[in-house]
């Protein structure tokens, strides 16, 4: 491994020291954390920011005249600017803090109700997470709009010919993820965005699984909405962002009423606050927002190109080793995918495999990954999903492979 280590784009051993959790043992074995697509681990630099917030300047924002409130407000707004810069967004008020991707999607789905009439069409992809299916189904029930689905191929890629045929003047909105959570497929969103706009519709891209690996330039993409969660990119849980083009955010109605989102209130009429506050009712996750900014700083210091190229090496190595195991089948074999491997072993239930490898200290996800339509497509109850991050090592891949072999031996 020494020879390999010299060629790596990242100094993994030093990076790993930033993550206190990676030192712990699980069930008596050193933790091998391969559930990064569910949530990423948090570096000390981000933990320090959280501790600093509650230790030194915890206060409610945008309201108080006192110094602590000012300080907290400044840091929170500075975090918004960091997010703006990271995603190359034109205006900082186009970044709305939310509790995460699901909240962001629901905010848009709710707002779009007024844009839709009976017979209008909404297109989602067959690769979606339930959180990008259910809100649109609810919206269709409410408005009489019709949900159309872009089918997928055996490789786990979107059938783009079928997508282009689905688009018509009835299409009002398209919702697709940038990267599939269950399979890791990177979707051709540039092509999807361009075609959607040509058809005169709006598009929301769910970037939850892409953001930890790909730095998206939202102005270049020309996407209408882009949503992410901080906890998948080294940040805390309970905070995320909704990016929306200014014209759309002005058009959509507020999602929740409350403090912070109003300009004036009387019993006759309330006028809403300007962007972004119109969509940020109530006291937000202040500490979370600030820590989200710190997480972006951390990842940018390592560099997204380095992250992507290292994770790709891990993916290729793990894929090659797994395929040596007899009866093992990988779902999602697109050439363009993030470091996610979803697989099953013939005759074995993914739950059993997950249970055994957990006893060996390895964290993987088993089940349908909140993407039941994908599992139905492959006619399987679920898969074992190993998802890698830049802090995982080749040695950990080896430990994982031998654990899978052990599980296979025990279960067969």
């Amino acid at each position, binding site marked *: 491994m020494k020879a390999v280590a010299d060629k790596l784009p990242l100094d993994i051993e030093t990076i790993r020291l930033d993550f206190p959790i990676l030192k712990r043992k699980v*069930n008596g074995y050193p933790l091998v954390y391969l559930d990064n697509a569910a949530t990423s681990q948090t570096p000390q630099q981000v933990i320090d920011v959280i501790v600093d917030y509650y230790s030194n300047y915890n206060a409610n924002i945008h309201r108080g005249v006192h110094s602590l409130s000012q300080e907290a407000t400044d840091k929170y707004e500075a975090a918004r600017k960091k997010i703006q810069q990271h995603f190359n967004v034109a205006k900082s008020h186009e970044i709305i803090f939310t509790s995460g991707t699901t909240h962001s999607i629901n905010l848009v789905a709710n707002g779009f109700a007024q844009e839709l009439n009976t017979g209008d069409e909404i297109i989602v992809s067959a690769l979606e997470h339930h959180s990008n299916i259910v809100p649109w189904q609810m919206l269709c029930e409410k408005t009489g709009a019709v949900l159309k689905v872009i089918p997928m191929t055996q490789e786990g890629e979107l059938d783009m010919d079928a997508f282009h045929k689905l688009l018509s003047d009835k299409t009002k909105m398209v919702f697709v993820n940038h990267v599939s959570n269950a399979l890791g497929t990177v979707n051709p969103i540039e092509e999807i965005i361009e075609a959607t706009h040509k058809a005169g519709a709006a598009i929301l891209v769910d970037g939850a699984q892409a953001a930890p690996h790909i730095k998206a330039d939202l102005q270049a993409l020309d996407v209408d909405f882009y949503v992410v969660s901080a906890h998948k990119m080294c940040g805390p849980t309970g905070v995320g962002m909704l990016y929306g083009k200014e014209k759309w955010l002005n058009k959509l109605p507020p999602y929740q009423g409350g403090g912070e989102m109003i300009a004036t209130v009387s019993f006759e009429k309330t006028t809403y606050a300007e962007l972004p506050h119109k969509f940020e009712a109530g006291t937000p996750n202040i500490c979370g927002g600030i820590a989200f900014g710190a997480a972006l700083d951390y990842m940018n210091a390592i560099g997204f190109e380095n992250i992507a190229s290292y994770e790709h090496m891990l993916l290729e190595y793990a894929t090659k080793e797994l395929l040596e195991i007899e009866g093992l089948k990988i779902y999602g074999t697109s050439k363009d995918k993030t470091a996610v491997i979803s697989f099953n072993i013939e005759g074995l239930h993914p*739950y059993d495999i997950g249970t055994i490898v957990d006893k060996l200290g390895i964290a993987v996800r088993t089940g349908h990954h909140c993407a039941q339509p994908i599992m139905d497509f492959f006619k399987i*109850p679920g898969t074992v999903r190993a998802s890698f991050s830049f802090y995982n090592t080749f040695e950990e891949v080896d430990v994982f492979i031998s654990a899978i072999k052990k599980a296979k031996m*025990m*279960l067969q």
Partner: protein
Amino acid sequence: MTIQEIQEEIVDEFSMFDDWMQRYEYMIELGKSLPLIEEKYKVEENLIKGCQSKVWVHADLIGDKLAFSADSDAIITKGIVAILIRAYSNQHPTDILEADNKFIDEIGLKEHLSPTRANGLVSMIKQLKMYAIAYQTQLD
């Protein structure tokens, strides 16, 4: 044998193993030897709902005792069901309702009692007790 006696017997068997791997291997063996539920009972109504593995449980009243049969598509889950059925099958509904589940902890399967183990022990035990409540009413 009473439920408690059977539970003690199971605890005894598991105490022979030194590590988790042997315990799990034994559980997998038990799973493989579980008498299969009749195909006609593997229906939606008998399915314990959850998101990981499928578990079907069926109960028959024979005299004043409840006989359980079950199956699962996951082998470890099947082993757990086998242990539960051994403890609770062919017992009076009242005894099933009064039984405690401390033996699960004692055989080193405590982690399966966690609510995150969807479809795990907790919902299975609940299902067995639901049957017991239903049939107890019938016996009364």
